């Protein structure tokens, strides 16, 4: 705009003169901002009306045909807060001389600038506006809220209609673009519900997302959410933002810690904690509505694609018993035993999380409404599924959030309620307590290969701050609460104690490392005595790191990490001298009498028990031992879709006794005779297990979620009579068969083995011997390790 034209303009706006309007406007505006008896909604309306009147007065004497002043964006929605910009467009029909248009624009905008009201303005012909909106999402979104302020109403009408029609026409192209901006914004500004200092507008679940939802609804691709919660949440966030503007005296969108007490007072709440909790709830409601809305968009756009209906392949594959992936979402199978199976909800959630797909909204609603409560303690299949849900790591968080919003998490674990949306006031934390806990679980899943009990690590990570919901030292209180929660999940007494101690000591390592003399033997002795075993030390060290990484970059500096690592190494040295490492979760079945008697007679037999209450069936195999037997059995079980939960394999006087705890993936397990027949065929080579499994794995989609790389290592000094190889990896069908085959190809015998599936992770320990029945020599042992590591790593 040409400033030199300024003086000439004032002549055209003579009459009352801009100064007079401006003075009156500023006085009236200040009165509205300061009026304590206005509600935030009344203030927004009053400010908008005031601006409308003022702009109409300024515009008053200007020529009107073919030209209009239009409010867009927040002003278009009459949401003027004390610090808001005025978003306006001066639109014209393109018939006027550009110099005249510029002159008119100046005479409208100068008084606004002179009044020091922040102005976001543009001057466009109808055609220009359409063209700019076609390329710039922000402009198109702003125009969706277009509202007439002054001038020719037909122009405003034409502008709004053309934009809306174009928006609907191009929805298939623009909505994915819009979604991308939502994702970028979420990356940049985080999620409203979980931040200690959220941005009320830009954080995901904030005001901007309600505008986006409106735009989606305007496109007719998906509906505006039916739930009144979104409208209420939106009004509430506007109220908080209004208080924030008044408290800071400027346009501020980020609710910083220092402002929270004052804002809480202005909106009439007790304190900052209550304020933040209510902001979190609003953020969660909006985020949930957004998720639902975007999924609807995806589905509609897919179905509108040009591929003819019959040729379009809707992917549909079973995820677990009773749950199917359909069109990118997890849904219940038609015959899912919803009312009779209390574990279905948690199993469905775990399956969805591990497949990296969301639970369909309708499915979630049915699970909430119809599935019976879990018995207490939970049956092992529920616990196992819960751990698999946690083990999905970062990619599983969306499923967790859906369960949370739907209220299922609190139904499973009532004590969770106390930390939901709970803010925390320390400079190192970014997130509310519940979200921090889930972040710690995600970090823990990443580090799961460092420990022999990934299931306990994940549960301890989930519960480590649960004490923050109660008064007192949160570690000590938390240990008691966590004990109850872990027992509720159905862990054994020993495992409950491990989780409880991990929670009690989750701040121990950094505290000792930074405040005690690490070279003093008394320091390491104290830590060693508190922890008792290398296994517990590894769990605690890993939990410490997961917790710190989840808190934020400031909490796990190289400085701190170095101190903690030093303490752990020193404590390990003390513990290794005293306690041998334990393996396995301790509940594997010993070979029973039947098996032992058979083994002594040199027989070959297979026994499959009927599934117990928890669907686990035991498969006992007795056979003369030979290299490759383990691989053959593992392969045959995988072929029959029996998931291995655990196994103990022993050799008694040349006979192998293997007890497998398995769960049939779909339907009832096969009977003994079938397994026996296939095992014989696998051993004599007439059944190519490997090829069959390879063919099947082609149909299986590789996991869509990120999984931690496997870890394969030799455990020194664990046994004098065998080489001990430990494999920690993400569970997948046929994994054990692959490892056992590799060992067989290397002509190494597996004297015994302990196999454990802990949620989605497996921890397998193999006791290997050479042809002479003794431990492998160092080079060969290393070679075998490298072989297995390479084979697993290349697939991971």
């Amino acid at each position: 705009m040409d400033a030199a034209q300024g003086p000439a303009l004032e002549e055209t706006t003579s009459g009352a003169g801009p100064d007079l309007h401006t003075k009156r406007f500023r006085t009236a505006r200040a009165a509205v901002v300061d009026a304590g008896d206005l509600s935030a909604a009344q203030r927004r309306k009053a400010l908008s009306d005031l601006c409308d009147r003022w702009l109409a007065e300024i515009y008053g004497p200007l020529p009107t045909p073919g030209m209009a002043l239009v409010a867009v964006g927040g002003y278009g929605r009459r949401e003027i807060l004390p610090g808001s910009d005025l978003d306006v467009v001066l639109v014209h029909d393109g018939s006027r001389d550009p110099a005249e248009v510029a002159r008119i624009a100046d005479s409208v905008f100068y008084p606004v600038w002179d009044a020091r009201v922040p102005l976001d303005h543009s001057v466009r012909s109808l055609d220009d506006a359409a063209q700019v909106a076609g390329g710039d999402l922000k402009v198109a979104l702003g125009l969706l809220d277009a509202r007439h302020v002054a001038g020719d109403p037909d122009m405003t009408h034409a502008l709004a209609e053309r934009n809306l029609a174009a928006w609907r026409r191009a929805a298939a192209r623009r909505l994915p673009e819009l979604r991308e901006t939502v994702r970028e914004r979420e990356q940049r500004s985080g999620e409203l519900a979980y931040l200690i200092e959220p941005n009320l507008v830009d954080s995901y679940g904030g005001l901007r997302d309600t505008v986006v939802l409106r735009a989606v609804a305007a496109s007719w691709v998906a509906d505006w959410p039916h739930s009144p919660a979104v409208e209420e949440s939106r009004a509430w966030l506007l109220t908080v933002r209004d208080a924030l503007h008044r408290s800071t005296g400027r346009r501020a969108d980020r609710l910083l810690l220092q402002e929270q007490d004052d804002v809480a007072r202005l909106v009439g709440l007790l304190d900052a904690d209550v304020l933040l909790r209510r902001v979190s709830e609003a953020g969660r409601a909006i985020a949930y509505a957004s998720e639902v809305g975007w999924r609807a968009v995806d589905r509609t756009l897919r179905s509108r694609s040009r591929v003819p209906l019959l040729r379009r392949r809707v992917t549909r594959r079973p995820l677990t018993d009773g749950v199917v992936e359909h069109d990118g979402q997890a849904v219940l199978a038609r015959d899912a035993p919803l009312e009779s199976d209390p574990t279905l909800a948690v199993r469905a959630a775990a399956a969805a999380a591990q497949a990296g797909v969301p639970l369909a909204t309708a499915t979630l609603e049915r699970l909430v409404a119809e599935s019976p409560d879990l018995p207490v303690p939970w049956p092992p299949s529920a616990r196992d599924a819960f751990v698999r849900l946690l083990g999905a790591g970062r990619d599983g968080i969306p499923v967790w959030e859906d369960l949370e919003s739907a209220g299922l998490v609190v139904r499973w674990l009532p004590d969770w309620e106390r930390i939901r949306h709970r803010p925390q006031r320390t400079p190192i934390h970014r997130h509310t307590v519940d979200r921090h806990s889930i972040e710690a679980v995600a970090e823990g899943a990443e580090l799961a290969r460092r420990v022999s009990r990934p299931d306990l690590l994940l549960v301890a990570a989930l519960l480590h701050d649960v004490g923050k919901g109660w008064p007192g030292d949160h570690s000590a209180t938390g240990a008691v609460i966590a004990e109850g929660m872990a027992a509720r999940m159905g862990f054994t007494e020993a495992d409950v104690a491990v989780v409880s101690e991990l929670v009690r000591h989750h701040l121990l390592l950094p505290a000792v490392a930074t405040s005690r003399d690490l070279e003093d033997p008394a320091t390491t002795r104290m830590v060693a005595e508190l922890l008792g075993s290398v296994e517990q030390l590894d769990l605690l060290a890993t939990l410490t790191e997961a917790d710190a990484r989840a808190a934020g970059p400031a909490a796990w500096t190289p400085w701190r990490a170095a101190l903690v690592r030093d303490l752990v190494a020193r404590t390990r040295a003390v513990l290794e001298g005293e306690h041998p490492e334990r393996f396995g979760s301790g509940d594997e079945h010993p070979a029973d009498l039947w098996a032992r008697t058979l083994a002594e007679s040199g027989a070959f037999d297979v026994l499959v028990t009927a599934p117990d209450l928890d669907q686990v069936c035991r498969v006992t195999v007795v056979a003369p031992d030979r290299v490759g037997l383990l691989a053959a059995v593992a392969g045959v079980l995988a072929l029959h879709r029996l998931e291995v939960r655990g196994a103990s394999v022993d050799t008694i006087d040349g006979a192998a006794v293997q007890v497998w705890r398995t769960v049939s993936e779909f339907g009832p397990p096969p009977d003994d005779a079938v397994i026996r027949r296939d095992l014989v065929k696998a051993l004599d080579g007439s059944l190519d297990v490997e090829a069959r499994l390879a063919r099947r794995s082609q149909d299986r989609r590789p996991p869509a979620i990120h999984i931690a790389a496997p870890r394969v290592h030799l455990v020194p000094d664990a046994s004098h009579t065998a080489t001990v190889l430990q494999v920690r990896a993400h569970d997948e069908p046929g994994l054990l068969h692959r490892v056992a085959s590799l060992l067989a190809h290397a002509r190494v015998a597996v004297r015994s083995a302990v196999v454990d599936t802990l949620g989605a992770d497996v921890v397998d320990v193999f006791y290997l011997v050479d042809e002479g029945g003794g431990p492998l020599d160092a080079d060969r042992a290393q070679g075998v390790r490298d072989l297995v590591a390479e084979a697993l790593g290349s697939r991971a």
Partner: protein
Amino acid sequence: MKLVTAVIKPFKLDDVRSALESFGVHGMTVSEASGYGRQKGHTEVYRGAEYTVDLVPKIRLEVLLDDGDVDDVVEVIVKTSQTGRIGDGKVWVAPVDTVVRVRTGERGVDAL
């Protein structure tokens, strides 16, 4: 005026701080630092595999003082942070031309 800088073992920070406070020093700057001196890092043996800790975590502590207090303060720091083992750290003193208190603009000894 002098700047006293001390690099000490992290676990000694609380002792040094309370000793200095009872001596009458109430302001200091503390930062996390890493480095090595004659200690040159140390080699750890962990499960047969040697790994070197290149940089040892330390605390760096800085105090601004009037010339007259320097010797006493240095002595307090040295005494409290001594364990007698390698890696106890160092204390050094450097002259300071001027000090300004940001809030008031006071200069020199008044700003301490």
